[in-house]
């Protein structure tokens, strides 16, 4: 059964230097609070995996904790670039960033293979693109029935998956709804998992469109209301679009970012 812990204890126990960490949430339910706790804790040399790195990884990359990024789309959705990500890739600041780049379909299938305990997944993808040639986790595979050549993508099995959900019960069963993304796959693919939740409730009431993760398939749950901000948790909060827009200016500049980090994350209270 999942242990119900404080965010601080959960991150301390689950996220270690050198880990491969997947923080997922497709625009919705992005576990920002957990990422900020990782920054406070200073877990470093991380390999970060995520379909859409988004501001959450821009912050971790800018904080200098990331060795490698595995991803499929690295922008600020609806706004523009991720400046800390670009600065790391283009200029190696604050440290060089190795990238492993896929398409969304490829990343989604890598998680699905990881969740299924398979070493790879098959898709009809990457054809004619420049991605396969420079991404070692894409390889051709031939259908034994038709002879068609398809793309194999290597499973991703993070050391830790971190996701945010609306609710958990006291036994650590987790429920999230709305756009549910690839979080089920990320948690099931990972060796350990942390779910931050808006609320721990006595009983999970079944909801339309909800994904339920049984507590025995989750390592730890931490109650962190607002833990997805500036993204949102359907039924609890709305997306802080201004934060996303403001991030563009704020993060362009290394000093501005450093000041933000010191004030809003490192200076923030642990939860």
């Amino acid at each position, binding site marked *: 059964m999942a242990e119900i812990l404080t965010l601080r204890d959960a991150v301390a126990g689950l996220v270690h230097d050198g880990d491969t960490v997947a923080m997922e949430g497709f625009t919705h339910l992005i576990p920002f609070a957990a990422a900020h706790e990782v920054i406070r804790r200073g877990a470093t040399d991380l390999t970060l995996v995520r379909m859409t790195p988004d501001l959450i990884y821009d912050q971790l990359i800018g904080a200098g904790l990331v060795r490698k990024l595995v991803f499929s789309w690295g922008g600020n959705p609806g706004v523009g670039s991720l400046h800390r990500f670009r600065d790391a890739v283009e200029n190696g600041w604050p440290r060089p960033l190795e990238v492993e780049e896929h398409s969304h379909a490829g990343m989604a299938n890598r998680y699905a293979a990881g969740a299924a305990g398979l070493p790879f997944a098959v898709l009809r993808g990457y*054809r004619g693109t*420049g991605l396969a040639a420079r991404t070692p986790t894409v390889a051709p595979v031939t259908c034994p029935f038709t002879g068609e050549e398809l793309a194999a993508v290597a499973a991703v099995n993070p050391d830790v998956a971190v996701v945010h959900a609306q609710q958990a019960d006291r036994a650590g069963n987790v429920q999230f709804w709305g756009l549910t993304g690839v979080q089920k796959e990320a948690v099931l693919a990972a060796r350990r998992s942390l779910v931050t939740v808006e609320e721990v409730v006595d009983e999970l009431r079944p909801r339309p469109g909800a994904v339920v993760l049984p507590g025995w398939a989750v390592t730890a749950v931490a109650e962190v209301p607002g833990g997805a901000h500036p993204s949102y948790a359907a039924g609890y909060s709305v997306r802080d679009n201004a934060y996303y827009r403001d991030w563009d200016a704020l993060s362009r500049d290394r000093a501005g970012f450093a000041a933000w980090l010191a004030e809003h994350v490192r200076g923030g209270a642990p939860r």
Partner: protein
Amino acid sequence: MTRPGTGPAWTADELMEVNAARALAGARTCFVGIGLPSTAANLARRTANPGLVLVYESGAIGARPSRLPQSIGDGELADTADAVVSVPELFNYWLQPGRIDVGFLGAAQLDRHANINTTLVRTAPGRPDLRLPGAGGAPEIAAHCGEVLVVLRHTRRGLVPALDFVTSIGHGTGPGSRTRLGLPGRGPTAVITDLGILRPAPDTAELTLTDVHPGATPAQARAATGWDLRTAPVVRTTPEPTAAELAALRALKAGGAA
């Protein structure tokens, strides 16, 4: 290109958006990326194609947002959708088998065969590449949708003689490329810019200027293209945006319900 005070007035972007929406008139289903494609697809639902089914890569199938989503993960997409599925399911069960009629893509660079780069741009020798967001859903949208529409502003930086990186395949090196690669969809059928519309020539699959928007000229389009842009024997002018189209577009962008 605004014509303030002289009756109907519109911007170049509005011409692009209105014509992109019109291009969806015959589609049943459309795979929508954020940005210009989302504007066009939502405008189409308010004008040319009220029954258009919008499919977002965030997992919302049949979304009917009342305002323009701020992101492909906007909460209203889930709230108004016929069905919400996981991201792996969306790509595997819905996109890959060719269930989506039209894919709508943007591009940082586009070449004459409508191949797309959204990954990186080379700068001067010895200088680092400029990093772009990357592939996202585009490579498989470009492969599997029945056809692809591309929307981008018409500049020499965007319409280039050679891509710095091939993120998503259009017509490859010309006729036969898609068949040789085993790409099931027909590929890009139109590139809609703020100056006009480019379509692949039937014999060469090379993008050719077939339409200009009101107020734009083929010469302008050629000057804004990084390769020697061919023009169709007769270049049409797209119909002026109607008052209804402009009203719907502006309401959409202002966040009003429609």
